[in-house]
């Protein structure tokens, strides 16, 4: 199966700090790919690079056959109408109701009559279980509900791909379960390709078809969830099994105990 997104030799840095140092990655069509890694490894940056909000220093990113860093603004916007992105906070427009938020991309990009737009919105809201919340304002929603509304908005234009930025962070167990279930169901029902960055290991592993672990600007390991659980790589093992000590040490570098506790100069 061909890859929808393919990344070759990606280099990206912020100031003097290198975030990515030669990353190669293929994201297969129609599957859920989870990109995991500790906080601060640039997972969100990777999503922004795929979406064309940031431009790589070196290397290429191809989305559906188009080099994303070489597109004009117009072509990039045309490609983005076929992509949805779910931000960590939901990023709903706070001056619009739930209904108008989901309607927003439809009103901007289609000339559909109001009656058709209404049906589409209600269908999208039904898919995330929030048809009854259409008249609420974003400030009246819980964090989990806001993310579900943002999901409905992201699928409003029936995209080919959805990018999820930390979809599970800060959710209670029930809304976490709802989101896990929704991501899987939307992916299969609408024949989407989903890319999810997360550090919530059990939830991501439970629905991903394909997992890629990154740290320190490189891909440490990639494969199916089963392959990663059985991995011999000590780093992957520590991360997947949430162990407190390992290649990422519990103690950060310090003077020796003799010096600190007994006052002995070496």
């Amino acid at each position, binding site marked *: 199966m061909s890859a929808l997104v393919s990344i070759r030799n990606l280099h990206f840095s912020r100031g003097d700090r290198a975030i990515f140092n030669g990353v190669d990655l293929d994201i297969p069509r129609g599957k859920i790919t989870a990109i995991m890694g500790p906080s601060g490894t640039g997972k969100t940056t990777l999503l922004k690079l795929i979406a064309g909000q940031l431009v790589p220093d070196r290397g290429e990113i191809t989305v559906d056959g188009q080099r994303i860093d070489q597109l004009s603004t117009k072509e990039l916007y045309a490609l983005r109408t076929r992509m949805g992105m779910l931000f960590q*906070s939901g990023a709903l427009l706070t001056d619009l109701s739930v209904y108008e938020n989901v309607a*927003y991309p439809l009103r*901007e990009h289609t000339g559909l009559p109001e009656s058709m737009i209404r049906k589409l919105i209600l269908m999208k809201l039904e898919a995330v279980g929030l048809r009854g919340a259409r008249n609420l304002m974003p400030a009246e929603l819980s964090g989990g509900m806001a993310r579900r509304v943002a999901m409905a908005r992201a699928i409003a234009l029936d995209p080919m791909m959805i990018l999820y930025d930390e979809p599970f962070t800060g959710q209670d167990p029930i809304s976490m379960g709802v989101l896990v279930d929704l991501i899987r169901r939307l992916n299969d029902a609408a024949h989407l390709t989903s890319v999810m960055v997360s550090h919530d290991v059990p939830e991501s592993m439970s629905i991903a078809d394909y997992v890629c672990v990154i740290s320190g600007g490189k891909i440490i390991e990639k494969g199916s969830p089963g392959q990663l659980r059985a991995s011999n790589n000590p780093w992957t093992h520590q991360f997947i099994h949430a162990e407190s000590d390992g290649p990422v040490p519990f103690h950060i570098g310090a003077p020796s105990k003799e010096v600190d506790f007994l006052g002995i100069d070496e």
Partner: protein
Amino acid sequence: MNWFASIGRRGINVLRNLGRALLLLMAILRAPHGLVTRFREFLAQLYSVGVLSLLIISVSGVFVGMVLGLQGYYILSRFAAESTLGVFIAASLVRELGPVVTALLFAGRAGSALTAEIGLMKATEQLSALEMMAVNPVSRLLVPRFFAGVVSVPLLAAMFNALGVLGGYFVGVGLMDVDTGTFWAQMQSQVDFDKDIINGVIKSVVFGVICTWIALFQGYEAVPTSEGISRATTRTVVHSSLAVLGMDFVLTALMFGD
């Protein structure tokens, strides 16, 4: 050497920011069609930056006019020239105080709000979300706000002037017994439409551009944290006030020199 380098760095930063601000202004001016497609948004902004600023502008106008009436009367009466009080009040307001004080109040009341609003939208990823929905945040958010500000400031300045004249009339004629007829007649004959009023309007349009531009730029470029937004809001008020006062001197020198 370090001291020298830090001056250089500051200089480069100032130039870079100026460049970015100019690019943003160009992007706004290049997309005025946003005004037509977002006409409802424009009207909503006209309400929030213009209509909601009316109260502070009106009250300030009345008080400034009253102070002008008092001070003008005290000084002019020493030379037995109270009859020119109307001219004194109207010319000061139309030429200087109206445009300048309105712009300063606008920067504090509406400019800071614009910066905080755009900065907060940036911090809550709403700007990124718009980009991801293939909507240009400049034409969706900045264009209607910019033109609403540019239209509002001259109208608010006109309101300020009118109420200022009434405030001055109340003090001069009502309390100090200046003759009503001479008050209005002198004003009418001595305040020149082209030289005074048109120049005043030009000033307030320029100030409207400056204040709204600075406010939107600071919001758009704000560091997306609570501290960053608070700094950006402060910078909006400080930079707008300084730019308005500096520009006022330049415009006055250009307009009123013979």
